[in-house]
């Protein structure tokens, strides 16, 4: 990835998103929130608020730069744990790479492709998956258009991303997006960062599961206590 590309991509595109976002949120409800909160709030369940594009693009580009490392600064590969899961969910590391590349090539228009750890939680308020197993949590490759990212979908923990907006590769590769994707996968991905994100994701999911357990036990204890709620129904009682 050439210096010229970075000067424009980071120095102009990313910088403009940051500057415009700051201008947009000053004095509004979004002012003072963390970047992630601004992204989720302005996503507004799909009814995008004006700040969303800038906020999400700021987050996406931060994540993108951190996903890479300079060529030649050591190899790096997926950790053993991560590799095990990759083998389970994609068949092999090559299988994962191919799926990632294919997704990046077929994202029509502008967008991003994500390698993410997906939790198995049901997205229904306080519903808890009663049959949780490690099999439900999996690694996935997903695409998103324009500025959308998995933060807005919930329960996704992004591990790696590639920017497939044309500005990301046009100076170096012109229309040859597949060449850009291959170069990125072969030479630029920082697996150290991906590994550490994976560890954090697993820890976060475990913490939430423990929270769920705790809440579930609390609910149980409530119903088995001597004081039944006033509106409780006991189908076996002799009321007539």
């Amino acid at each position, binding site marked *: 990835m050439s210096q010229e590309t970075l000067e424009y991509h980071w120095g102009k595109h990313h910088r403009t998103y940051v500057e415009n976002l700051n201008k947009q949120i000053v004095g509004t409800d979004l002012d003072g929130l963390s970047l992630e909160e601004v992204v989720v709030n302005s996503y507004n369940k799909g009814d995008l608020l004006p700040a969303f594009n800038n906020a999400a693009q700021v987050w996406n580009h931060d994540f993108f730069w951190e996903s890479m490392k300079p060529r030649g600064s050591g190899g790096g590969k997926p950790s053993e744990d991560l590799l095990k899961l990759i083998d389970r969910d994609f068949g092999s590391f090559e299988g994962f790479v191919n799926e990632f590349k294919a997704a990046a090539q077929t994202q029509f228009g502008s967008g991003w492709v994500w390698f993410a750890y997906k939790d198995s939680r049901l997205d229904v308020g306080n519903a808890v998956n009663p049959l949780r197993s490690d099999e439900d949590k999996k690694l996935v490759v997903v695409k998103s*258009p324009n500025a959308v990212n998995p933060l807005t979908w919930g329960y996704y923990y992004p591990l790696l991303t590639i920017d497939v*907006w044309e500005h990301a590769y*046009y100076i170096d590769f*012109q*229309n040859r997006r597949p060449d850009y994707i291959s170069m990125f996968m072969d030479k630029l991905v920082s697996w150290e960062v991906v590994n550490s994100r994976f560890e954090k994701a697993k820890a976060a999911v475990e913490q939430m599961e423990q929270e769920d357990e705790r809440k579930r036990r609390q609910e149980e204890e409530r119903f088995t206590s001597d004081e039944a709620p006033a509106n409780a129904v006991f189908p076996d009682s002799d009321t007539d």
Partner: protein
Amino acid sequence: MAARSLLIRKTLATVLRRDSAALGAPAAAHSRGLHTFTLPDLSYDYGALEPAISGEIMELHHKKHHQTYVTNYNKALEQLHDALPKGDASTIVKLQSAIKFNGGGHINHSIFWKNLAPVREGGGEPPKGSLGWAIDEHFGSFEKLVQKVNAEGAALQGSGWVWLGLDKELKRLVVETTANQDPLVTKGPGLVPLLGIDVWEHAYYLQYKNVRPDYLKNIWKVINWKYASEVYDNESS
């Protein structure tokens, strides 16, 4: 007698070949009843629109991007052609996005090349006649139209097009944007594209980098209003 039939056969063959070429269909596909699309030629050199649009961009845009849309459109249509008689419903539905994207790309870019002309062939000359009057009527002035198109084009997130169109039902001009390669008709079945400006980054990046507004400001110098007027006159009668 023999000589005459030889001559007739030769003429028939020439006619068939000529018709095939005009339709852009190689003989094989033509005989299967499947039309094959081809990349239209530009009526000007790649460098003829400079300095508004560089020759480098024009060549990449035409020879690579548009050609890829054509190639992939044909591929998708062939797959559709095979799936239809089999009644393979899921394949038919699965192909829709590829057809919309690549077919739209072919349609939109074919219009775009005709929307542009070198300065010495009238590029940049504002429209006169009925389209000129219609623009004044609907937008107030030509300058206001330019401002509106530029504002909408600059504000478009991601990839897409900004259009000046004719709404045939309401009989008025409109400025619209479409995302990705969606043709103008996706915004309304009665909409006819008069002028489309490609605001995908590939249309301007090598020359204007991230400064899309500069590209929009400059492209008016090579807009071919003669073509837009022709379409307007044909469609509004």
